[in-house]
């Protein structure tokens, strides 16, 4: 089993207080224990099944695609949405979901 951290930035974690620990004014996080071979996309779907706000905000209506208004970073590196379902998670990894912003 592997332990990975999921961070939700800005307002994404607001409705998930209690399930996600507030680490600062703009970052909520939780640790997940996952099996070997799970990809970033698999984990995000799992979280979306469990937490309605994530399903509502992060995925578009077509389902398994991350809404274009979000960027995913993997261990603090921006990754393409195209490889979200290919990148297998390792112990100690960190996934950060960052909402994009009109303006600025």
């Amino acid at each position, binding site marked *: 089993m592997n332990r990975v951290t999921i961070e939700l*930035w*800005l*307002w994404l974690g607001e409705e998930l207080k209690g399930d996600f620990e507030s680490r*600062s*004014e*703009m*970052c909520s996080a939780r640790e997940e224990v996952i099996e070997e071979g799970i990809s970033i996309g698999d984990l995000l779907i799992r979280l979306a099944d469990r937490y309605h706000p994530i399903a509502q905000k992060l995925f578009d209506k077509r389902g398994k695609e991350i809404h*274009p*208004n979000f*960027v995913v*970073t993997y261990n*603090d*590196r*921006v990754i*393409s*949405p*195209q490889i979200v379902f290919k990148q297998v998670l390792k112990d100690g990894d960190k996934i*950060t979901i*960052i*909402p*994009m*912003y*009109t*303006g*600025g």
Partner: protein
Amino acid sequence: MGIGGYVKKVLRADLSSERVSIEELEPSFIEKWVGGVGFGAKYLYDEVLPGVGWSDPKNRMIWASGPLAGSGVYGAGTFNVVSKGPMTNLAGSSQANGFFGAFLKFSGYDAIILEGKAPSLVYLVISNGRAEIRDGRPWAGKDIWETEDGLRKELAVKKGDVSIFAIGPAGEQGVFYSSIVGDGGHVAAHNGLGAVMGSKNLKAIVAYRGKRNFEVKDPERLKEKNAAQFEVAKVAGPIFRWGTGGAFSALYGIGCLPVKNYTTNIYPEHERMNGQYMRNHFEIRPKPCYICPVAHCKEVTVTEGPYKGFKAEEPEYEQLAAWGPQIGNSELGAVVMLSNEVDRLGMDANEASWTIGWTMECHEKGIFSRNDLDGLDMKWGNVEAVKAMLNKIAKREGIGDLLSQGVMRASQKIGGEAADCAIYALKGCTPRSHDHRGGRWAELLDTCLTNTSTLESMRGPVQPELVGLPPVSDPFSPEEVSTINAKLNGIGQFEDCLGICRFASPDPKLQLECVNAVTGWSLSLEDVFSIGRRVINQLRVFNFRHEMKKEDEKPSKRYGSIPTDGPAIGKNIMNKWESMVENYYTLMGWDAKTGRPLPKTLRELGLEELIKDL
């Protein structure tokens, strides 16, 4: 049946003779060019011939609003200034919000054309179909706030009775990146258009509030679509809640925050420097533009730190980045102070900050000694030295004279290693205060290839899905970035013809519904792209006639460098630069090698008359 949304009059002010005249706008002209940057592009092309430089009295400035300004659309008080500007010595179009766009029309004009050069400093007053050129000498050397307050006093009017846009000492002195600032902190910042105004000895333009004096064809439909647009504005983005500064940490997360002149992308202080922190900890008061319920503009009072008690316009994202990470500062109150300072002096915060950051890096590397910098200790984060340097630049005093020319020219003059550290696009365009080497390659490409001297295709983040195009799947894909930039191009320039704010009117399809309701037209989204592309091509042919070089459509060495740390480490946009540019040219209907618009493209856009000029 006439067209709704227009006064159908243009004011021409010949500053050399200090005479004004009024010209009627023909319906065919209005339909083809719509307003704002469209009007500006056409007048600039027809009246500023090759060989006329930015400071030549023969240069024109066109201040134009659009059909939605003052129509009842929320936040529609916007206008464009179009001229040949000093940063590029090519066309420049810069937009400002506030009230002026609506008041211009209420005063009796859709646009003002400024030509010539006044014998001494003057200002222009417009009200109720009349225009007067008045003595501006008492305001010589005054900053923006002093000028606004003083003119209101002289005219015996209160705040809200008039809209005033002026230049500060920087514009009068010919600082290359001078801006035009008004309504307490709204700025037409790009391509040094404040310096053009200064070269004409024009200190300010004052427009009275007046009343709506044009027809809205379908008021009920407008009311419905405007209300729908407000609902989108409330939920579409966090601007409503956090202002543009709310983007700060999100941009840090994707490697787009400029830190110490692109020498790093690490800035752990970002959470104490963002819009969320400011609105949660500082005192905030709404300061909305013309009938804007979104009210993302605020007044702020600093409540902690060495600048406690300092009160000013709340810095937008670009100022937060410019006076925070880019200069190595992590004191948020100092950002408020420096943002106020650069606006007060009348300079573009983006270019000022690239110039200051470059100076700091050169100082760190020993290229500039403290003596070279007139005794100022320009180490990273020394905000009081930055304040002093901004004042020297505005007066073109000592080292400030070199820095007043902007980072491209200053770095080229110093040469050597200093030249390699400067951030700019080779045409002279100033990037906005991001690190575009992160997840904003699209904006880097747009900044280098633009014909307006600022964003042409983009709306900030790339959102092709708003106009029915597929969303971005990979922000680092050269093919995808260049394709989306080309396919999206047109919508932004159409928007800049309308006199609206994109934060209050975020949905392009609802914008179009509002245009049709006001004017009585039946434009489609396809028409919108065509109008926007017509404006772009008009400006592009203007630029080629004014000696734009295809070879200059690329970033400086530092602007196009590879991030050495942070979220975008190792990403290299220059690997496929030439193929990106060729793909973009091709999709825009331009020659793939030269970038010149093809005759077929110009014909399709109704610009046949330009073919001979190329």
